[in-house]
């Protein structure tokens, strides 16, 4: 990085106080989040933090300020404290990450969830300007990937990763990346589609003359010529483009099932056979145009499905729960080591907010472990040295030192994952709408074909075979095969725009028949970290409020943080003899006043009589006298009460919580009397509850957020994982739902019902087309013209109907949701929704 002399001017900058009036929040010039404490200013531009300012300086110094012209507040907030990537240079790790290396030049592909707009693409493709040795970099926007080519001798892999992280584009390096290989992309579909389209167009051009009866021109036998050319063009289509249908139909018939591919295969064979006969015997022009048209439309449908899948597919493996590296203590120094390099007996340092990667023993440091994701227990638990710490817990507070007791792969968590109950894959269901319909369809069509053949064999034997084949030809399963993919695919995309990501389109069909809903409590219905805090006792004086605010600000305990937010004034007097006792409380001396804030048990042990309270509360004593208590309730997500009321009318509801009974009364009120509420549920209990609930007639939807519901999510018919941050880990589920959408669960269910209705209507329309077509065919009057017109018309009209109706319904049902999405969230400044692509990694909260 070129250091200019102006750099020195940037060093000492005034801290900017946040705007005093609530409406005039200044937004960071770089990333758009509101500037609070710690804001910086430069050249009349405000920045929310030192990180953003640093990036701004870096871009300015290298002439890359166009970044800010390409998109508003396009920057990504840099995560503080993530700067150690030396471990990626270790040969074992490096090998897995790098795509190829030929000695001098290496190419590496990273997944960067923070990519969200055109400015990101531009900046990442101009990476070479920021570091000598980096060559070309290419972004793949839909997959949020960047492929960087760099010179080994000039720059190390860790330096590349550091550069990306310093810009805010930290690559997503997960444990699982080092184990699985990336799957290659299929180009076959494009080839098949291209060839089918080519043949379709050209054969149609040639066929026009025969439709208009103009192919008998003088003594030229154009009919025969065109027939042969059409045959030649249709050959690759029949063998190459239709190959997937042959395979699928063969597999289906072997299993004695009648999926949609069977009638399609029958239709193709009938078309091809009849056409070959007609052309080679000189009796007609054949139906090659309809054949190629049929395949072209079918493949278009497949491509649409594939594109939807590529854009929206997510595969959340349990392994991606873990970070890639941990800080290891070797001798007296620290180093960052990949998880795969850790061994039993290693000493690790776990900082505030970091995960404990393996079962370990606490060596030193005040440990306050948040197991909410693993067990569902909302309150963090304090641990003492020599206590056993389970993998998956998150440390809150200072740095602790732990010693690994079990290998990462053998920790409690991993053994839980590997348990039969958690790892059983859901069986692929063949009872989709399309397959059920195609089953009936095939039977009816075959019956009619045989019946008409039988009929004509008595009346006019010449027509018998012709009508048989004609019925098979015209009974177009094309529309059937297109209705569901297009309607449900459009619905899937509509869901994705509203931050509900479905694993595949068939989830919608299951959603439409759900009649029983099971909710998890912590993190699903309640929002972590937020909530109401109320004070009970004699009103606190302004001075006392200031003391409590200063004291609680010093702690990272979630309760302390919420209490400190209650009061805004900061005491000007310094705090003396501040002490925080993990699991008990904190004390400090301000202006000669002794302030104790903590649990009832702790205050009692110091001789202060406290009030009895239900639920979580933090008690305050000043100068040895009891002052009052703060009652903290976990906040219900906005709109939950309305949601539960609406749902209880039509669905059977249940609540499973890993937390204790303290909130039973409150939730009985919300859920109604008929719902069943269960507390103190372990992951296994939750799994068993869902298992026992599922029975014929009941379709169960489970809504949860953490590993503790993973088994239940898998066991249910539809598993919904609620996440705050889309790109963060969430267990394998059928749907990933952004936390903001939980209150709109009712609309989600309604929309899926409507989409299924659209599919059924499309089937109805297609049936009508078929009735018309089959009646013409059964009478033995089918001509290529009729076929060539009927088939594209029915396909296109059904596709248009399916897509249009679904989009319209989506807009109608969700109209108030989309309005919210584009508003700037006051807390997070999350308004960086890219309208260029809807993808699960879109709404990354980089802070």
């Amino acid at each position: 990085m070129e250091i200019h002399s102006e750099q020195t001017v940037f060093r000492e900058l005034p801290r900017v106080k946040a705007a005093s009036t609530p409406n005039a929040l200044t937004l960071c010039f770089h990333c758009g989040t509101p500037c609070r404490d710690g804001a910086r200013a430069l050249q009349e531009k405000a920045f929310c933090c030192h990180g953003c300012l640093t990036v701004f300086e870096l871009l300015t110094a290298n002439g890359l300020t166009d970044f800010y012209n390409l998109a508003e507040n396009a920057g990504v907030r840099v995560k503080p404290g993530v700067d150690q990537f030396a471990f990626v240079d270790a040969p074992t790790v490096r090998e897995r990450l790098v795509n190829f290396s030929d000695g001098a030049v290496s190419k590496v592909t990273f997944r960067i969830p923070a990519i969200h707009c055109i400015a990101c693409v531009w900046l990442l493709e101009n990476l070479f300007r920021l570091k000598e040795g980096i060559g070309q970099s290419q972004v793949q926007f839909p997959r949020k990937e960047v492929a960087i080519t760099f010179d080994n001798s000039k720059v190390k892999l860790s330096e590349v990763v550091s550069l990306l992280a310093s810009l805010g584009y930290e690559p997503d390096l997960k444990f699982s990346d080092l184990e699985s290989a990336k799957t290659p992309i299929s180009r076959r579909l494009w080839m098949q589609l291209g060839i089918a389209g080519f043949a379709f167009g050209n054969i149609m051009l040639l066929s026009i003359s025969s439709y208009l009866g103009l192919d008998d021109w003088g003594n030229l036998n154009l009919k025969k010529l065109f027939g042969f050319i059409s045959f030649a063009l249709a050959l690759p289509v029949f063998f190459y483009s239709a190959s997937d249908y042959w395979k699928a139909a063969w597999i289906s018939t072997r299993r004695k099932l009648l999926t949609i591919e069977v009638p399609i295969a029958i239709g193709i064979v009938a078309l091809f056979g009849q056409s070959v006969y007609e052309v080679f015997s000189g009796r007609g022009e054949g139906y090659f145009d309809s054949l190629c048209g049929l395949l072209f439309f079918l493949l278009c449908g497949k491509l649409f499905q594939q594109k939807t899948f590529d854009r929206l597919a997510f595969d959340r493996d349990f392994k991606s729960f873990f970070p890639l590296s941990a800080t290891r203590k070797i001798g007296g120094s620290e180093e960052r080591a990949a998880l795969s390099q850790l061994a039993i007996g290693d000493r690790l340092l776990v900082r505030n907010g970091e995960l404990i990667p393996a079962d370990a023993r606490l060596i030193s440091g005040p440990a306050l472990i948040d197991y909410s994701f693993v067990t569902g227990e909302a309150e963090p638990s304090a641990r003492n040295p020599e206590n056993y710490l389970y993998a998956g817990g998150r440390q809150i507070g200072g740095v602790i030192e732990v010693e690994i007791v079990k290998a990462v792969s053998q920790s409690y968590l991993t053994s839980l994952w590997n348990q039969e109950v958690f790892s059983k894959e859901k069986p692929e269901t063949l009872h989709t709408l399309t397959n059920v319909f195609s089953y009936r369809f095939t039977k009816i069509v075959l019956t009619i074909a045989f019946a008409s053949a039988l009929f004509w064999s008595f009346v006019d034997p010449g027509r018998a075979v012709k009508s048989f084949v004609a019925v098979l030809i015209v009974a177009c399963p094309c529309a059937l095969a297109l209705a569901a993919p297009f309607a449900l695919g459009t619905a899937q995309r509509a869901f994705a725009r509203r931050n509900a990501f479905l694993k595949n389109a068939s989830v919608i069909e299951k959603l439409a028949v759900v009649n029983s809903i099971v909710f998890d409590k912590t993190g699903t219905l309640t929002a972590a970290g937020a909530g109401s805090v109320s004070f009970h006792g004699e009103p606190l004086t302004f001075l006392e409020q200031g003391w409590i605010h200063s004291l609680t600000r010093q702690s990272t305990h979630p309760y302390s943080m919420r209490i400190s937010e209650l009061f805004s004034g900061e005491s000007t007097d310094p705090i003396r003899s501040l002490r925080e006792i993990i699991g008990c409380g904190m004390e400090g001396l301000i202006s000669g006043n002794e302030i104790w804030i903590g649990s009832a048990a702790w205050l009692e042990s110091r001789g202060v009589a406290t009030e009895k309270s239900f639920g979580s509360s933090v008690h305050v004593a000043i100068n040895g006298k009891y002052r009052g208590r703060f009652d903290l309730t976990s906040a219900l997500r906005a709109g939950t009460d309305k949601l539960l009321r609406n749902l209880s009318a039509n669905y059977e509801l249940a609540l499973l919580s890993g937390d204790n009974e303290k909130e039973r009364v409150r939730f009985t009120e919300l859920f109604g009397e008929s719902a069943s509420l269960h507390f103190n549920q372990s992951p296994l209990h939750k799994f068993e509850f869902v298992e026992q609930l599922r029975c014929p007639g009941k379709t169960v939807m489970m809504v949860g957020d953490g590993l503790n519901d993973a088994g239940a999510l898998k066991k249910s018919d539809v598993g919904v994982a609620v996440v705050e941050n889309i790109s963060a880990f969430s267990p394998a589920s059928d749907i990933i739902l952004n936390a903001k959408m939980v209150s709109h669960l009712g609309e989600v269910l309604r929309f899926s019902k409507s989409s299924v209705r659209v599919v059924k209507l499309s089937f109805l329309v297609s049936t009508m087309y078929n009735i018309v077509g089959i009646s013409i065919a059964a009478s033995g009057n089918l001509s290529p013209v009729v076929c060539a017109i009927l088939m594209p018309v029915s396909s296109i009209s059904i596709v248009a109907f399916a897509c249009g109706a679904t989009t319209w319904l989506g807009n109608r049902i969700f109209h108030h949701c989309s309005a919210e999405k584009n508003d700037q969230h006051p807390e997070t400044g999350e308004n960086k929704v890219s309208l260029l692509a809807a993808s699960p990694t879109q709404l990354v909260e980089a802070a």
Partner: protein
Amino acid sequence: MTVILLLIPLSILIASIFLFAFIWAVRSGQYEDTCTPSMRLLTDEDRRASKIKNSENKQQS
């Protein structure tokens, strides 16, 4: 009208050239990502300039 016997095969030949061009494009991976090039288009001028600078850097080093 017999010229049509020449024209039809000729037109099919020309059309095949385009088909082969399509096949080549698919094979060279141009259809893998149809989204990002549309975004790159809006910033193209800078990239052309930058490519030159990049190759200059490469030449110097």
